[in-house]
């Protein structure tokens, strides 16, 4: 029983070291585990694939650098997909701290040789950041120029070719909210849905991307159709990248993620076995 009791009282710093060591080894020696593709992520991918060239998608990136490892790859993959499909997009953030990060993703995607000819204002519009959450979404439902009179470069929206046909949220063909909290997906569902529903014959569908912590709270919205798809955490992002056939560092990171999960599961099982065995012996005494 001595070893089991010691296991129960193990110094948490040893667990931290084991996890850190496993991550470092997994990053250096990636195993290339396959990424299982799930229906919620495929729904977003399929929707994007179904859009004809020239369609316009809104991508709201409502997060800041603290969620970068999970959400940045989602934004990258969506921008990449839009450019690849010749689908135009309008992007923005409800989180002021995320604006520079969005600019960074955009410049990263534009570095791809095949996208060199993409023009700001025609192929994409970066509205920038705006605080106000619900008020911003409702203003955009009535008139996007009310919420964003200019884009991030201070150019009036009325001068941008892409915005000539996109006046309100109802004019969009698809929308995706990638969020790390509030404001985020909830805000777009609660305050944006009434405008998305106005589109005829079929509402503007909304896709979601969120951190792993939030994922379970959004599954009910999938079932009800308020979200047409959901990317949860780094796993969701890597799935989307796998659909696109991208080879990114997140694929390697996902290997490390799988290894840490196995270690944590092993610790949970060992801890429970030790707990129940020692409890029995304590009861006998």
């Amino acid at each position, binding site marked *: 029983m001595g070893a089991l009791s010691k296991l129960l009282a193990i110094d948490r710093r040893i667990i931290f070291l084991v*996890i850190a060591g496993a991550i470092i080894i997994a990053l250096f020696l990636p195993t290339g585990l396959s990424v299982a593709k799930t229906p919620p992520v495929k729904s977003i991918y399929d929707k994007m694939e179904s859009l004809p060239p020239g369609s316009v998608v809104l991508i709201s990136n409502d997060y800041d650098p603290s969620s970068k*490892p999970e959400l940045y790859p989602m934004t990258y993959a969506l921008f990449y997909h839009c450019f690849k499909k010749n689908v135009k997009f309008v992007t923005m953030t409800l989180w*002021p*701290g995320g604006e520079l990060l969005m600019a960074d993703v955009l410049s990263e995607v534009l570095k791809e040789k095949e996208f060199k000819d993409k023009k700001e204002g025609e192929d994409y519009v970066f509205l920038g950041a705006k605080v106000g959450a619900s008020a911003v979404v409702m203003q955009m439902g009535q008139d996007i120029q009310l919420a964003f009179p200019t884009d991030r470069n201070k150019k009036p929206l009325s001068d941008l070719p892409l915005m000539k046909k996109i006046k309100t949220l109802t004019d969009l063909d698809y929308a995706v909210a990638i969020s790390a909290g509030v404001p985020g997906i909830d805000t777009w569902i609660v*305050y944006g849905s009434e405008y998305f529903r106005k589109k005829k014959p079929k509402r503007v569908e909304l896709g979601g991307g969120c951190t792993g912590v939030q994922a379970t709270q959004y599954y009910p919205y999938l079932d009800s159709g308020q979200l047409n798809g959901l990317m949860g955490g780094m796993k969701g992002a890597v799935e989307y990248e796998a659909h696109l056939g991208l080879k990114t560092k997140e694929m390697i*990171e996902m290997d490390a993620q799988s290894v840490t999960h196995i270690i944590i599961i092993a610790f949970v099982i060992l801890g429970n076995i030790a707990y129940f065995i020692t409890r029995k012996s304590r009861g006998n005494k």
Partner: protein
Amino acid sequence: MRGSTVVLLFVVGFVILNAILLAIGHLPFSVEGVGIIVAVGLTLAIYSFLYKDNAAFKFAEHLYIGVAIGYNMVIDWHQNLIPNLIDPLFYSKDVPDYTLIIPMALGILMFSRFIPKVVWLSRWTIAAIVGWGAGVTIPRSITENILVQAKSSFRPLVGPDGFGLSNIASIVCLVGVLSVLFYFFFSIEHKGAAGKLSRVGVWFLMVSFGAAFGYTVMARMALLIGRIWFLLADWLKVLKV
């Protein structure tokens, strides 16, 4: 060895290591290079808490809070107050929008919180915010979070082609909704059949907590992996895609 000595030795070691990395050209001697060094230093300072609480962690924590607040204030000033209030009211090329005086006055009243004698004035602003918030949020929230959700819960238990595997999910959903709702129904004692039903509700809740915890672990690990990648790839440059 005292904690402060450990921190001092760590800082000295960190400075020497970065000086070497800069000297051998491993890190660029530029704003980007300095940015990476600062980010690495702060990352290590924050993670040092895993060993134990220390001065480096406290410094990084306070710095983060200060920078975050300062950054948000500046962004708010430039992206909210200037374009939405100051420009249209004071520097408008057309007729100034005088209706903005009302929200401006309400905003200024919030500063009465600093003067105990007139602190009650801030309640007007809070009342306006609460009133607007409730009026805007309640109907939309009820529609999207309750009515639409309830509607999607009402599903036929047997499909037009008879009972199939797809109908099992509907039955699980029905049992889950009813048992969890019953668990939170406290007007009768949970005994006998009622007790068993609420017990089923507890199991459904446990499964949902487990799923949420699993996702939380995944999220935290993703953040840790992201930071370790940064240290190994961007700083030490021993990893690449």
